[in-house]
């Protein structure tokens, strides 16, 4: 018990860092994924702003980068991180890599959820003289909101997973703490404490997502 009290302050600090990395990654990657996913949805064949060439391009980019294992992606993207955030190491570089990877992953989730919106309601909005942007804003996104909330919940968990390997670029956070101080130094207490905190956070996120989705879907 006293040992747990001893590591508690550091555990709290590292949890805070992880939440920050996940939060920023979700904020940037979530927005990027929304834009790219919506882009895929509207430019596809028969979409409200059908643009075959643009669709092909977006699709190619997403298909190329999404399947790359994150740990490799993060290493490969380092030069780009240096260019964009000014450094190839540390938490900023990790957040950059996570945001980018999350953008591609979330783009697909968004696209899939938008595709499932009943084309009939879009037709109805068009019949009332609504323009494409208005339809995206007031029909497509609100109608898909329930599944989108669940999709984003799923994405948060994937981003927590990504944040665990931030240490590879010299980043910190709960994952790095568990590996560096727990696993590598045979300190099971640290490993298990970090694990419990992660599990609790993931459960809370899932719970929140479920409650929100149920609210939106009214069931």
């Amino acid at each position: 018990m006293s040992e747990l009290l001893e590591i508690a302050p550091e555990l709290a600090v590292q949890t805070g860092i992880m939440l920050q990395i996940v939060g920023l990654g979700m904020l940037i990657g979530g927005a990027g994924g929304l834009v790219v996913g919506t882009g895929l949805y509207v430019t596809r064949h028969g979409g409200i702003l059908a643009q075959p060439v643009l669709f092909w391009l977006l699709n190619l980019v997403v298909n190329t980068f999404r399947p790359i294992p994150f740990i490799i992606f993060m290493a490969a993207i380092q030069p780009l991180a240096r260019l964009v955030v000014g450094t190839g190491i540390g938490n900023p570089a990790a957040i950059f890599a996570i945001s980018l990877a999350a953008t591609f992953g979330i783009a697909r989730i968004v696209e899939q959820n938008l595709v499932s919106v009943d084309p009939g309601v879009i037709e109805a909005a068009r019949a009332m003289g609504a323009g494409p942007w208005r339809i995206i804003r007031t029909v497509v996104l609100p109608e898909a909101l329930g599944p989108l909330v669940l999709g984003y919940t799923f994405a948060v968990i994937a981003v927590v997973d990504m944040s665990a390997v931030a240490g590879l670029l010299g980043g910190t956070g709960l994952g790095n703490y568990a590996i560096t101080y727990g696993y590598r130094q045979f300190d099971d207490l640290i490993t298990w404490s970090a694990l419990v905190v992660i599990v609790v956070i993931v459960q809370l996120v899932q719970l929140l997502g479920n409650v929100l989705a149920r609210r939106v879907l009214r069931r």
Partner: protein
Amino acid sequence: MPHVRLDEVTKVFRPRSRRDSPVTAVDRVSLDIERGEVFAVIGYSGAGKSTLVRLINGLEPVTSGVVEIDGVPISALPARALRRQQQGIGMIFQRFHLLRSRTVAKNVAYPLEVVGTPRAEREARVAELLEFVGLAQKAAAYPEQLSGGQQQRVGIARALAAKPSLLLADEATSALDPETTAEVLDLLGRVNRELGVTVVVITHEMEVVAQVADRVAVMDAGRVVEHGSTYEVFTAPQTPTAQRFVRTVVRALPEGEELAALRAAHEGRFFTISFSDAGASEARVFGALARAGVDFNLVHGGVDDIRGRVYGLLTIAVRGPEEAVAAALAQVGPGVQITETGR
């Protein structure tokens, strides 16, 4: 000037893949739809009815020909101008297409948001519309909490929100049971009479046409094969397609096996009696026969109400001396055609 004018309108869908051939969904259709009338388009599945309405409100561009609304060539407008025209045309759908993310009131408000009506005015208009369709107490409900008939009434309220002069109804009652269908058709009738809105009703059910339409066009394989007043088309359909539709509601004359079976079951000479309104009725025919002491019975047919006008098509078997029969039939009077059914 007609409210809607179609001039040689054609729509060809390009094939999805190279193996398929193009589909001519609408083929050189010319029609005038007058202001304030209820115009029906009837046809079998795949006849091109939905494509035709979608050409009328510009949801689909024409391949060739001209669509004019109030003299404005809708088929030639750029996107922005087209959208402004569409704001003046209401449309309702078979599956309602209400926004599930919005309450009934917010659904009805949607077209008003599109045209930029200020909030207070919007709320007043929504309340007025929900009153009109009898759903004032459902304003805060979500679509899934309503029955099909109620959802369609919301659809109608929404379609009317921006005060269109034209309402297009694509199979608006096809997902509803007969009683609810009657309610919705009633409401469309009120929209037409009380608000003076021109209504175009797409359907594959002749009952719908009989109940609401002033005029009807019959479509088959992309072409309008016949059009005229509902009464004309019902009482004297010219094309086989129209005849088949009419037969679904008006019992046609017995032919072939059916006629042979009737002859086997009933003695006497068979006569076909047809009459339309203008004072004629089956009572007058039967009365004349009874007074002449001729024995008869009704073996086939019935009397229909088409847009409030009577149309009867009966086959009777008559027994008695030839002169008495002839004399009795001569007394029936004008407005009734009587012909002996051939063998």
